[in-house]
């Protein structure tokens, strides 16, 4: 059920930026989700359709860029994707590893239709 809260926040941000850009319509939102913050599943589009209804984002699609988390080996410097079984460097076997990335969770961009350049009658 967290999808509802997340989509409401998403709508607020998207509408604010669309408004600033004087857009008349939002067609698509690109959302970056790191593996370590992956609280959003594909059902979020369903909630999105509900919360965006009646706004200029109605009918828009959510596009997810899912980034896998990566670990950094503090012994040999190798960087490798996190696997869900063990946190050990596949290159040198060291267990001195730390998280390099995976916490991302942000709205990266929106694709919009802009207001016609001139609305004045010729």
């Amino acid at each position, binding site marked *: 059920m967290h999808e509802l809260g*997340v989509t409401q*926040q998403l709508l607020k941000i*998207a509408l604010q930026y669309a408004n600033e850009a004087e*857009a008349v319509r939002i067609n698509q939102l690109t959302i970056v989700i790191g593996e370590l913050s992956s609280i959003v599943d594909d059902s979020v589009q369903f909630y999105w359709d509900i919360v965006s209804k009646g706004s200029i984002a109605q009918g828009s699609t959510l596009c997810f860029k899912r980034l896998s988390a990566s670990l950094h080996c503090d012994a040999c410097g190798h960087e490798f994707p996190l696997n869900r*079984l063990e946190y050990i460097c596949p290159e040198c076997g060291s267990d001195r590893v730390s998280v390099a990335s995976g916490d991302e969770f*942000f709205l*990266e961009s*929106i694709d919009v239709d802009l207001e016609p350049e001139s609305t004045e009658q010729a």
Partner: protein
Amino acid sequence: MSKVPIVENIMSANDQIAAKTRQQFDELGILALNVMASPGGGKTSVIMRTVESLKNEARIGVMDGDMVTIDADHIAELGVPVSLINTGGNCHLDANMVHSALPSLDLDAIDLLIIENVGNLICPAAFKLGVHLNVVIASVPEGDDKPYKYPAMFRGADVLLLNKIDLKPYLQFDVDYFQHGVEVLNPGLTFFQVSATTGEGFDAWLAWLRDKIKERSSAGQP
């Protein structure tokens, strides 16, 4: 069609409310905890033993995020104020639910506020509540692979309790494997092994918590 670049944290609205809550706690000198675990991990049992041990030396209040009053009733029997945040089936507490529930407790009369989150090892980690410490409880029967399966929860923890250690003799639980997973995700994380049933390990956890309450109440003095 044109592209508008944004790069804005989706949780920013939640985080702003959390910051307001946090400010309120700080002004009043309250130490606030957000207790998270799987269903059955022992949140209520750990909270009850903690409350029982500390209630004569600190003024404690509890907020319970739940659909039913069973846990809240148990805690209330200990004689401390308890407020139920009815989550209506939601999988986590968020900043707004907690902030709206603040007036239900007399915050002036509280030194330690314990917020019991919804039993879930995934979603609660993503929603800041405005507390000072995220307390994550794992338990021996759940298995030693939890930091590998649910990395986000352990990454956001400020203190970790491994509960039900009295069951170790009956189960295969590799503490080193568990602890290594935690250490990679959250280096230097404070870690206590406890049993809410027998009380084993609680002295160390309570001593640590006492220090945190003291730090907070002196920070809250004008």
